[in-house]
């Protein structure tokens, strides 16, 4: 653990974006080097591609792998049909890619690749730039679908049925604000949940290492409880990784429902 060098805890170092192999590639004042963030996005895509490739044999009696892939596709498709209705089928490709990318990125960032010398795992979704772009794509699709289907009638989304005429200006502003804040809350939730979990894990890992370095009673007093707690928190983080991917896809489908059906 690089975080515990010299007994000083530096839990933020794991989020540093740096070029792979340490070489910068600067074009016209912009740093376009291939960073560890880009590398782990490629790893995420490659593992997702392998996972899907193994399960797309279309056998009549599915094997284990195909059953796993069909479990995920069935899960996303039932989520969309229950939230949007029969028209939700059109959004399955987008929401499925979103869900699987976030899920794989979250879980790959948690796996203990650090025990291999020279390999530093990196959680792609622990950066607001990545989750923010995903949220903006979702929000843009909601806007395009909403304005494409309903034209300017889409603005009736901000005035719920049965609002007293006197209240319409106030309700319109409140609903508009809650609509505009959606991409921020969507991106921020995933980014902060991942960042907080990884900071917590790194701090506990530093406790373990520092306790061993001090030796004596510190091992029983600090290292052992921290290590047990760390196992529990790691399991919790695996749950959070799945829940955050689910929540992102679920909220995207709820927002798409607003755009497709108004309300």
């Amino acid at each position, binding site marked *: 653990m690089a975080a515990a060098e010299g007994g000083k805890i530096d839990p933020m170092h794991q989020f540093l974006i740096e070029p792979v192999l340490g070489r910068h590639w600067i074009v016209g004042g912009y740093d376009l080097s291939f960073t560890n963030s880009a590398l782990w996005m490629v790893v995420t895509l490659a593992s997702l591609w392998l996972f899907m490739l193994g399960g797309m044999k279309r056998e009549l009696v599915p094997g284990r792998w195909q059953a796993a892939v069909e479990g995920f596709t069935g899960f996303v498709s039932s989520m969309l049909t229950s939230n949007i209705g029969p028209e939700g089928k059109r959004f399955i490709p987008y929401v499925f890619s979103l869900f699987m990318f976030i899920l794989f990125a979250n879980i790959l960032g948690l796996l203990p690749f650090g025990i291999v010398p020279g390999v530093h795992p990196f959680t792609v979704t622990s950066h607001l730039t990545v989750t923010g772009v995903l949220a903006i794509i979702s929000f843009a699709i909601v806007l395009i679908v909403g304005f494409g289907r309903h034209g300017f009638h889409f603005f009736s989304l901000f005035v719920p049925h049965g609002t007293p005429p006197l209240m319409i200006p106030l309700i319109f502003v409140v609903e508009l604000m809650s609509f505009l804040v959606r991409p921020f809350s969507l991106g*921020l939730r995933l980014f902060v949940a991942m960042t907080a979990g990884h900071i917590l894990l790194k701090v506990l890992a530093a406790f373990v290492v520092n306790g061993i370095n001090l030796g004596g009673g510190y091992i029983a007093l600090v290292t052992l409880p921290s290590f047990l707690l760390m196992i529990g928190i790691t399991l919790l983080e695996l749950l959070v990784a799945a829940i955050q991917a*689910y929540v992102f896809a679920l909220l995207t489908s709820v927002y798409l429902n607003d755009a497709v059906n108004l309300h």
Partner: protein
Amino acid sequence: MDPQAAKMIGAGLAAIGMGIAALGVGNVFAKFLEGALRNPGAADSQQGRLFIGFAGAELLGLLAFVTMIILVFVA
């Protein structure tokens, strides 16, 4: 007061918000279970709403964390 000390005290106060958000998240699941055990037949169809409520409660706790991080590392 020394600005650095004030920042750290503010960050510590922001941590209270996370504890209160924990109460909120617990409340979401507690009320869901309470309702689900009374009417198990309707529980599965409401799972999506459970997680929407969870996401809303959790977000406010995460905002407390963001406030803390901004106070310690940015401000």
